[in-house]
């Protein structure tokens, strides 16, 4: 054994060192991520209230059950509505802000960047609670609207299905735009200024430069933010729980919120909850895969 080791070539030694550094992290990921995933899948094949779990008969009955669950289908609808409306608005805003703040001649850049990023430093629960009180019937927004004589009396934003969804979307945009902007900003700073100069000399205007240079060169960043946003939105939880409690009449409930309710508010059914969580995982995986394929520039 010893003599073998001594005989390792330099390349082999480097490889061994590489593996040695990788192993702890890999082991931790396996134990903390992959093992729970496998367990979750096994639990998703079981059924029963609380501790009385047994394997379901037929084995995939939890997955069939989802198709008949009106509340869960409604929660899928809600989540995808947030996804379709909120993610594009947020990413476009983020890219515009990044473009503005990347301006070489702008003063107090650091201050503005900090301001835009600051919402991300607030905790999810506390910002959701603040939005809840802002949009309450006697909240700040209503008081302003009444004072300006736009409304006669406070509007029940959170008590109305459509407006409650809008409030959640506004809250999400507020919370996450700055976060994505930071990625775009770093992406923009990696673009050589000479490329822009060349474009200027060729007579391209701002709009053309944006579409012809900025967007293509930012593509990897855009894809990454898209995947992260899709992932985050599909797992949306805090806003639904704290802002609206999923109400009124489940009009704003998200998938993860419903999974939580199934475990901790209702009679606990961890098997069914795991099955739903697994479906969310599959959805995220599929959407991320499509995203990667669409964005793949290699021919």
């Amino acid at each position: 054994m010893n003599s073998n080791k001594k005989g390792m070539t330099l390349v082999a030694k480097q490889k061994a060192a590489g593996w040695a550094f990788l192993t702890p992290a890999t082991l931790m990921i396996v134990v903390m991520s992959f093992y729970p995933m496998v367990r979750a899948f096994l639990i998703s094949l079981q059924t029963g209230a609380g501790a009385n779990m047994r394997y379901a008969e037929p084995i995939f009955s939890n997955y069939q059950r989802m198709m008949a669950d009106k509340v869960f289908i409604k929660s899928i609808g809600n989540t995808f509505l947030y996804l379709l409306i909120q993610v594009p608005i947020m990413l476009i805003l983020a890219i515009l802000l990044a473009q503005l703040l990347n301006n070489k001649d702008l003063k107090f850049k650091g201050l503005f960047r900090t301001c835009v990023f600051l919402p991300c430093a607030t905790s999810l629960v506390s910002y959701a609670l603040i939005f809840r009180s802002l949009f309450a019937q006697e909240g700040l927004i209503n008081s302003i609207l009444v004072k300006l004589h736009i409304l006669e009396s406070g509007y029940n934003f959170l008590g109305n299905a459509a407006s409650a969804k809008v409030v959640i979307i506004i809250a999400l945009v507020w919370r996450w735009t700055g976060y994505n902007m930071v990625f775009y900003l770093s992406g923009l700073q990696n673009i050589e200024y000479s490329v822009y100069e060349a474009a200027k000399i060729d007579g391209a205007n701002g709009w053309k430069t944006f579409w012809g240079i900025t967007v293509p060169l930012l593509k990897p960043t855009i894809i990454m933010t898209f995947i992260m946003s899709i992932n985050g939105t599909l797992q949306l939880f805090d806003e639904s729980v704290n802002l609206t409690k999923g109400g009124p009449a489940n009009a704003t409930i998200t998938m993860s919120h419903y999974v939580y309710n199934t475990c901790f508010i209702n009679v606990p059914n961890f098997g069914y909850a795991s099955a739903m969580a697994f479906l969310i995982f599959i959805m995220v995986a599929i959407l991320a895969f499509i995203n990667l394929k669409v964005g793949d520039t290699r021919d």
Partner: protein
Amino acid sequence: MKRKLLSVLLAGAMVLSLAACGNSGTSDGGSDGGSSEGGGSEGGNKLTVWAWDQTFNIKAMNMAAEQYKKDHSDFDLEVIETSSDDCQTKLTTCANSGDYSTMPDIVLMQDNSYQKFLKSYPDAFTDLTDCGVNWDDFAALKQSYSMADDKHYGIPYDNGVCAAFYRTDVLDEAGYKIEDLTDITWSKFTEIAVDVHKKTGKYLLTSESTGGDVIMLMIQSCGANFVNENGEAYIVGNDVAEKCIDLYTEMIKQDAVKLVNNWDEYVATVTNGEAAGVINGNWMNATITGIEDQKGNWQITTLPKVDGVDTATNYANNGGSSWYITSNCKNPDLAKDFLVNTFGSSTDFYDAILPETSGIACYLPAGESEVYNEPVEFYGGQPIYSTLVEYSSHIPEFTKTPYHYEAREAVNTAIVNITNGTAKEDALKEAQETLEFKMSE
């Protein structure tokens, strides 16, 4: 150089403070483990308790410990403050993993959720039937929350008896007396509430639109529920349920009830004076008496009752809690003895905690004592404590269900849909189907 030093210092401070967090966490865990390990061997006179509300439940528990210590000098008790929601989440997590060792010895639990835990984790709690409590000293309904198959699992504590709290000054302004609202029906109440709202701009009733309790206490005041005796979903074809839902949606349509979106807004209507009436569990007392400038303006009376139902009463229960001993308790005899000699049988104890916590006992003999019969200044001299204990003896029993929260959600969803224009039959059918679905596996 200076910058570097500063950043090192800052980083060091952060790491230290984080480490401190970690430490306090482990010390908590340590004392937890200590109590459970100590149970068998060295003396084992320490009990841990999960409970919420410093001014009420926790205070009462600590007072109980002090009283018990007088006769048992080596007794020790530690209360770990755990919010009501956290109690449920933590218990679910401990019990579902099958590892009971992280549970406390004694836990406080909402009456409405206990049946759910008993169904899900039948081994997680200790049978208290023969622990020495005279169960007849507690109202039958209150006992039934913590019972299964004629066995007792909980020592009833926080009374959930409901009352109607009204602002007499507002009623005066609208030309009503508290007597006009005593022992009335919900339709009469609606009439008065609409009138009061017109004259004063204030509401006599507030309710949460998602997860509101008013509909639950309406049906339970009739001795009924949204499940039948076999525990099956019973919304469609349930006359009592339909009458309650009719009355309630009618109140919403006539603007006799103020709908709010969450508990903060609910409490705000009381504190900002928008609500001239509160119909809920007596624990709202703490919120109401907190508003100093409304002193002397509040009085309590019975709830309205549901029209046209033979079994209807003016009494209901909502949201009390009881003490449970978990299976993790290594010294169940001590825990039982402690609970029996304080919460289970001591009028002195209840007399002592009343002025401190204004918590109403479920222990019926306590209601006869002098302390309970003293007039309460805040309520214009009304002796509300003995009145509430008296109310609690009239509450009808009804079939409990582990699916309490599911039923409440299904029915509240139906009500929102009906007020938004869905036909009643369709909304109720959907509620029935949703509840049936959730009860299946």
